[in-house]
């Protein structure tokens, strides 16, 4: 079957090249049938990539080790769920996933626009085909997922234990859906620029794709943060790591794009911005995909040197050059249809929003690429750490939250001072009340930036609440409906607006969690023997007893040996037990001893977290294997050539020894307030995006006027 898979890829590459060529030919000569043929080719491409993906998945599921990829990334004892998801843990598999998603999204958008956008669609097809061709070329020429091994091994290498976590496995497809999703509006933007149809048509057609992409990308980023928090032994959720930043940057610019297109739709302004923003988002998405793979930036997640780094750079360079050239060439067509009337208007604030988000992105880009920049300038490779990022991004984040509050209350074109006063009074009062309460009852004042963030968040929530209240009241005045029904109908008929407000509320809650948990956490690292205890964040923690286990670890990752601890935590009347573990995975390195290899392979922490709405208690253990080393070495020589069963008994004995005579273990305990609100905020954002993007019933006008009265009358309905 590997041959069929490879054939799918090669035929796919040729199909993509044909699709691009046919579409361009059809567009230039006006012969529609060629453009249609190109579109059909994209549908074929979707079929080919899905088939290839299915073949690969099937190989993983049946542990077919003749596939080099399966031998590398899976094993017979890998749980089924992780077998399925191991496909995209590898370089080649993730390229195939990217290509498949791209083909599917392209088919979807081309199907939906098959009767409209006749001029733009062929060029968009060509762009999408070009990107697909690039990824397929990477696979066909350099990183073929269907490479086979002449002598299949009996057992595979298994999935990296750090990746055996549900969030980590859903994370890549979500990110890729985000990256790929943005290629759709990008392709149509290029088409619009080429054909000089720079109105809002291309935006209307691709807006939902941009929203879906943005949502998936955001969710993917949050999942990565969740994984970091619950799986890695350091206890944080964001480290300003280059890989993390690589996914955040396109999300920020994508956010700017989603807002900015509203201005073009409503008033025909910011056209140059929108073209630039979507090109920027797409380039950053490609850059994000590239950064994870190239090892060009040394990060804590250094993903090694890869064979496709140069190709990616070349491709990204091409896309940048194409975008810049197109935008410059079409500047006259991108002229605004209207002028900015007043600085206190929604348009002005959206412009400011663009600036802040792009500024944030540039700051992060500077910090991420600083090692390369400093090396180029000074000859020494320097790097900046999380404190620098925090210091520069916090003020920008504060401004952003403030904008998220003010934006919704502004109207288009112009806002008078009196109406501005009227709409801001209540939310400002809420923010003021929050400030007073925080100062009086908490120590929030210890961190100025957090205090400000709390107040701004209160402001945003006040604005959203007020919008819902006023909107529902206004509707009730007209229709006399009961509150719940009025609210439901209001949001149902204005999904984009109220979905958007919900997203703002979600972001505010998310940043609330971020501010609280980063400024007010308590952390302690201690070494304890059983019976000893320590205090952290008001909690009293006692190490009750050690634990040891062979196989069957709690998280279902298939670790042969696990060592852990049971700890009692008390605060006031509250009492709970935590059971952190450390899982040890056997290494296949032949240079290690027979018994040592069980303890010298990968190891990762199974953190135990007590979730709470007000605060989390996070605990990780790192058992000390030092005292056991002597016995392990002895066992190495004694049992070097014993059978697996005997070795298992030896390990069991060692584990038992650890349990009976435990050396002091290292613990890290972190009490961080309001972390749960980060995930809750994220969920609200996704919900809001769903509401905003959900197809709405057709819009109807309520009132009737002019010579089209009869016609408009028929479109009338009692709202």
């Amino acid at each position: 079957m590997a041959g069929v898979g490879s054939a799918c890829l090669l035929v796919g590459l040729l199909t993509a090249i044909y699709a691009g060529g046919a579409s361009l030919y059809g567009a230039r000569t006006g012969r529609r049938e060629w453009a249609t043929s190109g579109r059909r080719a994209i549908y074929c491409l979707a079929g080919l990539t899905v088939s290839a993906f299915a073949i690969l998945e099937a190989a993983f599921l049946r542990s077919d080790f003749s596939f080099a990829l399966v031998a590398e990334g899976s094993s017979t004892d890998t749980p089924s769920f992780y077998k399925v998801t191991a496909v995209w843990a590898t370089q080649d598999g993730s390229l195939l996933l990217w290509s498949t998603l791209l083909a599917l999204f392209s088919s979807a958008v081309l199907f939906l626009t098959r009767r409209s956008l006749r001029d733009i669609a062929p060029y968009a097809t060509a762009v999408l085909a070009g990107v697909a061709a690039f990824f397929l070329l990477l696979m066909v020429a350099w990183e073929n997922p269907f490479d086979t091994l002449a002598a299949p091994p009996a057992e595979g290498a298994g999935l990296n234990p750090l990746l055996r976590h549900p969030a980590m496995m859903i994370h890549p497809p979500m990110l890729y859906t985000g990256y790929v999703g943005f290629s759709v509006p990008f392709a149509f933007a290029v088409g619009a620029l080429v054909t000089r149809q720079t109105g809002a048509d291309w935006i209307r057609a691709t807006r939902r794709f941009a929203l879906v992409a943005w949502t998936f990308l955001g969710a993917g980023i949050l999942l990565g943060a969740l994984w970091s928090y619950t799986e890695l032994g350091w206890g944080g959720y964001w480290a300003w790591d280059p890989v993390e930043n690589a996914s955040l940057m396109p999300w920020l610019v994508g956010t700017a794009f989603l807002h900015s297109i509203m201005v073009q739709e409503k008033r025909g302004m910011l056209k140059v911005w929108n073209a630039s923003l979507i090109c920027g988002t797409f380039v950053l998405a490609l850059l994000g995909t590239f950064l994870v793979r190239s090892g060009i930036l040394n990060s804590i997640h250094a993903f090694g040197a890869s064979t496709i780094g140069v190709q990616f750079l070349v491709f990204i360079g091409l896309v940048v050059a194409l975008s810049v050239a197109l935008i410059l060439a079409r500047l006259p067509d991108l002229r605004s249809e209207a002028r900015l009337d007043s600085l206190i208007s929604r348009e002005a604030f959206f412009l400011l929003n663009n600036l802040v988000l792009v500024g944030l992105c540039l700051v992060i880009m500077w910090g991420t690429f600083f090692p390369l920049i400093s090396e180029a300038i000074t000859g020494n490779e320097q790097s900046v750490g999380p404190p620098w990022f925090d210091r520069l991004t916090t003020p920008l984040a504060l401004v952003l939250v403030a904008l998220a509050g003010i934006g919704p209350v502004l109207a288009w074109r112009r806002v008078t001072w009196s109406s501005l006063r009227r709409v801001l009074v209540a939310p400002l009062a809420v923010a003021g009340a929050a400030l007073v309460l925080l100062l009086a009852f908490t120590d929030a004042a210890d961190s100025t930036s957090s205090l400000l963030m709390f107040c701004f968040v209160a402001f945003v929530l006040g604005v959203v609440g007020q919008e819902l209240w006023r909107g529902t009241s206004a509707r009730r005045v007209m229709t006399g409906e009961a509150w719940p029904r009025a609210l439901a109908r209001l949001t149902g008929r204005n999904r984009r607006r109220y979905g958007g407000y919900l997203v703002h509320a979600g972001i505010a809650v998310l940043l609330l969690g971020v501010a609280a948990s980063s400024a007010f956490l308590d952390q302690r690292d201690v070494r304890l023997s059983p019976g000893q205890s320590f205090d952290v964040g008001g909690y009293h923690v006692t190490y009750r007893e050690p634990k040891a286990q062979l196989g069957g670890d709690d998280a279902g990752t298939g670790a042969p040996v696990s060592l852990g601890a049971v700890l009692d935590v008390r605060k006031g009347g509250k009492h709970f037990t935590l059971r952190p573990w450390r899982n040890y995975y056997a290494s296949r390195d032949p240079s290690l001893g027979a018994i040592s290899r069980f303890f010298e392979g990968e190891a990762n922490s199974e953190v135990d977290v007590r979730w709470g709405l007000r605060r989390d208690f996070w605990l990780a253990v790192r058992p000390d294997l030092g005292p056991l080393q002597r016995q392990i070495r002895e066992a190495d020589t004694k049992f070097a050539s014993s059978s697996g069963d005997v070795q298992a008994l030896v390990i069991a004995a060692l584990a038992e020894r650890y349990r009976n005579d435990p050396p002091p273990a290292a613990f890290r305990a972190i009490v961080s307030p309001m972390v749960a609100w980060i995930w809750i905020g994220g969920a609200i954002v996704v919900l809001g995006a769903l509401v905003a993007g959900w197809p709405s019933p057709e819009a109807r006008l309520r009132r009737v006027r002019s010579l089209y009265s009869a016609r408009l009358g028929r479109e009338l309905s009692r709202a």
Partner: protein
Amino acid sequence: MEYALALVVLAALVALAVAGPLRRRGEEERVEEARLAELRAAKEAKYREINDAELDHRMGKLSREDWRAVDRELRGEAIEILRELDRLEGRSPEGG
């Protein structure tokens, strides 16, 4: 060989699928249909804008005079779109 066979079969299938539209060369240029779809989308968007503006006014963000001005402008634009739609659809202005 499995690979070569799959190559030929798949390439043939794709070629068949994409050649289809090319054979039906005499297909009518339904340009109007595309324009109609675009106009309908634009009309839809314009109606939403009119409703949005009214909601803004009722919620106090737009004063009465501002709203009247915006409403007039938007309805004018909507009528332009409706005219264009009628022209393409070949209907009379009264919608008969």
